[in-house]
């Protein structure tokens, strides 16, 4: 993995502010048994992924080795060790969506964005991810871009939807 300055994107003030948030998350959970996962959730919330220098802070503060932290972070699909694009496209590949043609949507997303699954576009605009069940199976096939849910998709919808975010 490349090394990133914590919060390398943006000004130092912003970087400081982010680190402050991390510190406060750590102190909030320090006394909680099993603090690591909640802390990782907070960090991913703040940065969109888990930057290595920040994990080092966690390691020092919670007294866990880096290998322990990596072991946990890499086990869970929700955590990412690499930065993501501005908009993360989560296409559901759960059963209900798959049966209703999610594969075709995924292929189309991949062609339109020119990236493979788990890939990020060159301009850092989009990251394409396949996930398991977003719990909106009634609208299958479903994808989310950021917080917004797009349901009842057919491949032909994709170009227009992506345009909204370009």
């Amino acid at each position: 993995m490349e090394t990133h300055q914590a919060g390398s994107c943006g000004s130092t003030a912003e970087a400081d502010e982010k680190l402050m948030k991390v510190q406060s998350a750590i102190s909030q959970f320090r006394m909680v048994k099993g603090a690591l996962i909640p802390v990782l959730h907070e960090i991913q919330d703040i940065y969109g992924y888990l930057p290595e220098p920040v994990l080092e802070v966690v390691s020092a503060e919670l007294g866990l080795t880096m290998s322990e932290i990596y072991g946990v972070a890499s086990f869970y699909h929700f955590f990412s060790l690499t930065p993501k694009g501005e908009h993360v496209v989560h296409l559901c590949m759960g059963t209900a969506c798959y049966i209703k043609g999610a594969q075709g949507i995924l292929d189309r997303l991949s062609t339109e964005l020119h990236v493979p699954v788990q890939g990020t576009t060159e301009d850092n605009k989009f990251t394409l991810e396949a996930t398991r069940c977003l719990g909106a199976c009634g609208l299958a096939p479903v994808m989310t871009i950021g917080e917004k849910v797009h349901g009842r998709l057919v491949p032909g919808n994709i170009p227009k939807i992506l345009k909204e975010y370009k």
Partner: protein
Amino acid sequence: MKLLTDLEAIKTLTQARLDNRKVTGALPEAITFRSVMVCGGTGCTSSDSSQIIDKLNQEIAARGIQVQVEVVRTGCFGLCELGPVVIVYPEGIFYSRVEVQDIPKLVEAHLLQGKPYEKKIYEKTRQDNGHILNFEETEFYKKQVRIALHNCGVIDPENIDEYIGSDGYQALGKVLKTMSRQEVIETVKQSGLRGRGGGGFNTGLKWEFAAKQDKAQKYVICNADEGDPGAFMDRSILEGNPHSVIEAMAIAGYAIGADQGFIYVRAEYPIAVQRFMKALEQAREYGLLGSDILGTGFSFSIEVRLGAGAFVCGEETALIHSIEGHRGMPTPKPPFPAVEGLWGQPTIINNVETLANVAQIIMHGAAWYAGFGTEKSKGTKVFALGGKVVNTGLVEVPMGITLREVIFEIGGGIPGGKKFKAVQTGGPSGGCLTEEHLDCTIDFDTLTSLGSMMGSGGMIVMDEDTCMVDVARFYLDFTRDESCGKCTLCRIGTKRLLELLDKITEGKGTMEDLEKLESLSNQIRNASLCALGQTAPNPVLSTLKYFREEYLAHVVDHKCPAGVCKSLIAYQIDEELCRGCSLCAKKCPVDAITGELKEPFVIDTAVCIKCGVCFDVCKFKAVAIV
């Protein structure tokens, strides 16, 4: 801190409001107050139900009819397919696919003039004589019995008073004030309630094990991981009736002697998490969580832990490790969590839906609950009906109902005039059943005996366009991906199974491969530690058993009868049907289609990547899969 008498007072105050949300059969001119219920479940929220609520409030205020109308954001109504859904009481008029621009007219027509807004009335509620059915009389709702989903769609989940108004926290009060721990356990046992998270273990019995442990510290965990792809009942309960889970966790805590609970919920369920947190806050404020609950000396608190997207974490020992801050990897049982669970202390883990039944059982009695269902599977089960079925959504039905009733009556059958092919129950651990099983009853034991499973209640319907080999491949891809990696046969065996299935779907499979599939499946079953590995081969074995001819078509004839497996199909343009409009050529991402305008176009199969775009766009059905 609230006392039982305070709850009574709140109940009396709120009940009147809730009573308005019933179908009364009153004549329009006699109606002076209407309740407009807007679905705030995930499905409907994602199709803009929030904006609909805002617009409703605006329009109502603009007409100065606030006192005659209430607008309530509820949990899921079940018919998510038709979202955003709006129901107006007391007529029980069901509006589907409502859009923001419909609102002014809906308010004008229905709320002002008492005439339903024709345009968005759910088709199935219209009768030939012009009469509009109340939604509860439609095929979708008629056979349903809502116990776990009770309150979903009826109350505002973010308002604790409404929960109390509908008998909420009465069961907790009853338990704390009038029942011994053993009596609570006995009642749950008598009800016959079995775990809805997949295992189907008797809930009261599980509680009894934990209660018998002589330890000072015990825990209650609510499993809201809902890892089964294609299931969303737990999510909907948390979104639509979060207090029922909180109340049940406290009751369970009392029964086993625990003062601390955890709920492990997926981070992918933001609305559920947020509503549950809000409910926790309100319960704490009312003193229904915390110390000395209802002045009885009993203390109980609940913490939220977010899952991080690993299916195996739904397995109870793995879940415990995850809460402890480790990788969520299963460990052998025994010791069972009820004896040695979280941080080595006795712990019970219950599924959301299981818990959602508890307060109802306490309130109405064990015999009442056991009155639903079959001899060995009591009560109701919530299914997430999805796939190729008209009414996709959430349905709660008494156990013992048949698959046919659920799929064809409640579910409305297969869309587009297609033929039913299979139904998959039990998620990745389950199996596919066929036409000949449609009249079998749904209960824990029947499904297992047919080689499928109840699982958490995902029910995915498949039609003739679904390739069963591909479905098996899909599930294996899932379990291989989700294996925690601890057991060799689960880690490597599922990979080998997947490779075999890939080979078959590519048309390169042999008869020997079919045998290998079977023998490897049995080995994985026998040599895996947890149920993930033990059940991973189920989709393969059940499809091999019931859809063998489809495997043979792939292996022997190199054909995919459903036209799904890419290597075995080709796209071709039918000269007769092609009008030469050039639309397909314009849309083809790899320029595989050429031709002259008004002449038949041709696909160069060497260039074609089989994306299916031409098939989708052709208005003359000239593109065929061969």
